[in-house]
């Protein structure tokens, strides 16, 4: 009896590992091909075989010195870091007010925040563009950054986290004469580091990968973010696959590194909220 079950178990195990390994191959092979191809000379890009003596970093050197890839990389960093910093501060501030302070229309404001999450962004795209145009922010860092400095979703997310911080802690601090802002900066933010890390990582990655908005706002080449720059580079140099794919790897690496380094926060973010930015 147990013998039969055991063989059954092995059969299932083989099936399970086969599925796992198959999907690992499906996931990793595109990256692998892209990396190898980016290291090949252009005449070899469609060859199946790999000539190890011919592999080099030439296409990386070429795109970062002959094309403004470093500039685009810099723009992407500036925009993603600024947007992330703004979100961390502003979302937490709003979340603190909603979690801990009493004021008129508190419920209304909370439901408005929830409600804004249900409107698809495309509806707002055109009027936001027109507003930025009036302000003269088209083709500027301001236009790339300022519309995205707060996020309803992460206000909600931080509020849920702040609600778990014990009230006694706060009351003791109030009695000791700490102001509300003091409590926010000295108690709530330090106690919320895991939640802040989760938020930071999702917003950074989301902004780093964002394509539609920067391609609307950044019209001059010096202001392209890396995704916009790479797409335009592909449009002109699509036959130079080694360079195009070197650009794709350059674009992918930062978020992959961030992900692998801070994995547990990713999982926590999805698990605690179940939502995608």
């Amino acid at each position, binding site marked *: 009896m147990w013998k039969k079950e055991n063989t059954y178990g092995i059969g299932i195990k083989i099936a399970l590992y086969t599925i796992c390994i198959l999907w690992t191959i499906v996931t990793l092979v595109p990256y692998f091909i892209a990396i190898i191809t980016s290291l090949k000379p252009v005449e070899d890009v469609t060859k199946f075989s790999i000539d190890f003596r011919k592999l080099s970093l030439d296409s990386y050197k070429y795109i970062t010195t002959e094309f403004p890839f470093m500039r685009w990389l810099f723009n992407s960093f500036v925009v993603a870091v600024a947007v992330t910093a703004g979100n961390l501060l502003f979302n937490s501030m709003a979340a603190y007010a909603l979690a801990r*302070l009493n004021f008129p229309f508190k419920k209304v404001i909370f439901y408005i925040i929830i409600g804004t999450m249900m409107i698809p962004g495309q509806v707002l795209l055109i009027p936001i563009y027109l507003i930025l145009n009036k302000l003269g922010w088209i083709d500027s860092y301001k236009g790339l950054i300022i519309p995205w400095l707060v996020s309803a979703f992460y206000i909600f997310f931080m509020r849920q986290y702040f609600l778990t911080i014990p009230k006694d802690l706060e009351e003791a601090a109030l009695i000791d004469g700490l102001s509300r802002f003091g409590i926010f900066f000295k108690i709530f933010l330090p106690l919320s580091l895991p939640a802040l890390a989760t938020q930071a990582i999702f917003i950074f990655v989301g902004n780093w990968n964002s394509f539609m908005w920067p391609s609307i706002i950044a019209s001059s080449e010096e202001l392209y973010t890396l*995704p916009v720059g790479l797409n335009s580079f592909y449009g002109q140099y699509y036959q130079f696959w080694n360079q195009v794919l070197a650009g794709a790897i350059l674009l992918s690496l930062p978020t992959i590194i961030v992900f692998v380094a801070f994995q547990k926060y990713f999982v926590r973010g999805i698990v605690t909220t179940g939502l995608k930015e």
Partner: protein
Amino acid sequence: MRNRTKAQEYLTAFVMLLPYILSFCVFFAYPLVKAFVISFQNFSFLGDAPPKFVGLANYKEALTNKMFLDSILNTLYYSVLVVPTQLIIALILAVIVNDKVKFKEFFRTTYYLPTVTSPVAVSIIFLFLYKTDGLVNQILRHIGITPRNWFNEPSFVMPAIVSVAVWGSVGFYMVTFLSGLSTIPDQLYEAAEVEGAGELTKLIKITVPLLKPMIFFNTVVSFISTLQMFDLSYIIGGSDGGPMGKAMTMVVMIYRTAFKEFNMGVASAMAFVVFGIIFLLTLIQRKLFGEEMSY
């Protein structure tokens, strides 16, 4: 004294909410009203003429524009293919890497990588793989299937994009399913084993029914996000929507009408049509899954 502290608390709350309130007014409330107004106006960004009220003309123009109507069909076709495919794969992977294999951390990490990879990079990598002389065709030739120019043939472009989209987002839904699985008590499985239930029985009788709220949630999230698809279609198909416009999605169409043709009025009308479609489909989904959601 009490009034003073109360006033102070109001003021503190106001200051803390100020960035949100400003952003809400400038980048949400006003744009929402403005978008609605523009959708009834003859609003060309390029002309100097002041906007003119034109009634429902923009909606009429949007709904008689063949390219826009096609984009609706293309998008629905895309959603219908992507949503079940990615959820089924994600569920299978989640069940397996939950506790059934070794190296599960490695598998989870690997499967999640495409989710953090830029859609521009993903599109470009697959443009290379799906080329006529690309890797995919070289493999297919070996097993006797005629090589194709996947992204350049009208009937293949959307299924090819679907495969890229599924590759790119299975990891995300796998992790949400994993979080759902972690809430199912082990005792249920142990009890089933005592009664002699096999793996498949346990999956069908315990895992899937208990995951139903999560499955519903993922279906809605996945459906809404596929209806708003832009990046893959735009990078792979361009603003003309690829071969015979077969890769044109609703959002690419809005983008094209607004920022290539500068026809802001019609584009706004299209945006509200898309909003309506998303809203309607979400309601239908809620009705369909309604009973199971009640617990």
